[in-house]
């Protein structure tokens, strides 16, 4: 997600030896507004990925109250490909009045189903989505694009068909960290349906 910014700067030199990685990570988590990947964090603090991974696990346990301290009102979650601080879910109602996020309107059933098709079949062209859904999906695809839940992956050089894939934002909104966490439905999709996909 951080790809909006170009990385032609020299990497950060890393943190001084006397500072614990956990403390540096805590500080960084206070200023970020996007999920932070372990690799990105490792490069920011100038320590090996393995060490950073261990430090994150330590912080997660710490905030969860497993290191002898209290269970914090916040937690560290891995969502949408990286780590971020969230309010612990028991306290969602308590903080609700302090956040002014607008929850976007609910997706229609058609949009949800189309989203599911794209999530499981990505990258997939609009025509292929339409042949699975057997209805016109143009406006639904546009809605999903506008919501940032899907994006254009590539354009087929032969057919000119744009192929779509899901975004990190979808994973964030689903509260998952990877597409592997989608429910398995493949047993149903494997048999026979291939022939129809090949057509498009």
């Amino acid at each position, binding site marked *: 997600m951080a790809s909006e910014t170009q990385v032609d700067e020299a990497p950060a030199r890393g943190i001084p030896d006397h500072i614990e990685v956990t403390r540096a990570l805590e500080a960084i988590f206070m200023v970020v507004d996007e999920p932070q990947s372990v690799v990105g964090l490792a490069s920011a603090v100038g320590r090996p990925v393995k060490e950073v991974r261990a430090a994150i696990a330590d912080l997660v346990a710490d905030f969860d109250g497993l290191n002898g301290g209290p269970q914090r009102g916040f937690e560290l979650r891995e969502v949408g490909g990286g780590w971020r601080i969230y*309010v612990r879910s028991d306290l969602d109602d308590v903080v609700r009045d302090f956040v002014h996020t607008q929850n976007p309107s609910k997706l*229609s059933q058609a949009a949800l189903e189309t989203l599911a098709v794209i999530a499981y079949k990505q990258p997939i062209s609009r*025509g292929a989505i339409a042949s699975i859904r057997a209805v016109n999906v143009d406006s639904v695809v546009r809605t999903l694009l506008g919501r940032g839940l899907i994006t254009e992956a590539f354009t087929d050089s032969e057919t000119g068909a744009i192929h779509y894939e899901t975004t990190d934002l979808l994973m964030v909104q689903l509260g998952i960290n990877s597409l592997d966490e989608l429910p398995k439905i493949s047993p149903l999709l494997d048999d*026979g349906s291939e022939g*129809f996909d090949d057509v498009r």
Partner: protein
Amino acid sequence: MARSPESTVEPVDAPAGFRVTLDDFDGPFDLLLSLITKRELDITEVSLSVVTDEFLAYLRALDTGDGYDSDGLDQASEFLVVAVTLLDLKIASLLPQGELVDAEDVALLEARDLLFARLLQYRAFKEVSGWFAAGIEAEAHRHVRSVRLEDQYRETTPELKWTLSLDDFAALALLALTPREIPTVGLDHLHAPLVSIREQAAHVVALLRQGEPLTFRQLIAGAEVKGVIVARFLALLELYRNSAVGFEQLEPLGELTVRWTAENWNDENLVNLGADYGQ
């Protein structure tokens, strides 16, 4: 959260939606689908026209005068999706069967299975969309830390290096604002297949009319896409229905030989061929 295949054939809708009353079935549309997918109800026994009539009546009842609410539209689109698949399924089961030997029945069954699989696939996506809805709903109540950067850090971010001229900037805008696709009213959603049975029939006719019998294997030589093979097979069935070709098979699952048997063939016959498949 993994689901077993069995779970996907349970009805998912509240009973409040569209209901169907047929000779041997009375209940929610979704239950009808469940029964068909469980093969407890024979698709050939279901009158799709009756189902469609009932659905249209149902939609009219939903129309309050201000158009449909989104639930109604969702149901309408779902109905269309399923009806198209059911129609295909039914056509496949109604194709000529009487004189076919067992192997063709097997092949026919495969064509049906393909459609059946598509129905299953549709239902799988419909089912799993509930998981998406639940996930998005749950996550919408979570609160992530996202606060304004402290001024002391904001002030020290590197100064912006601006290299774009005014004209470059305008060109960029033009590029970004130009629609990449010309919006069209697509007919794709009417399930127009890219592989046309009619075209495949024309191909088969051209090969067979030369006189020599050909095996099915020869007829599909060079066709790499499964859809083309299926369409070519369906085309043969259609030609058989038109008494244009004959089949010969010495043993079950053995080589299938196709012979040209038409006496008064006219290429205009091709025009109506495969019309049942919505072309």
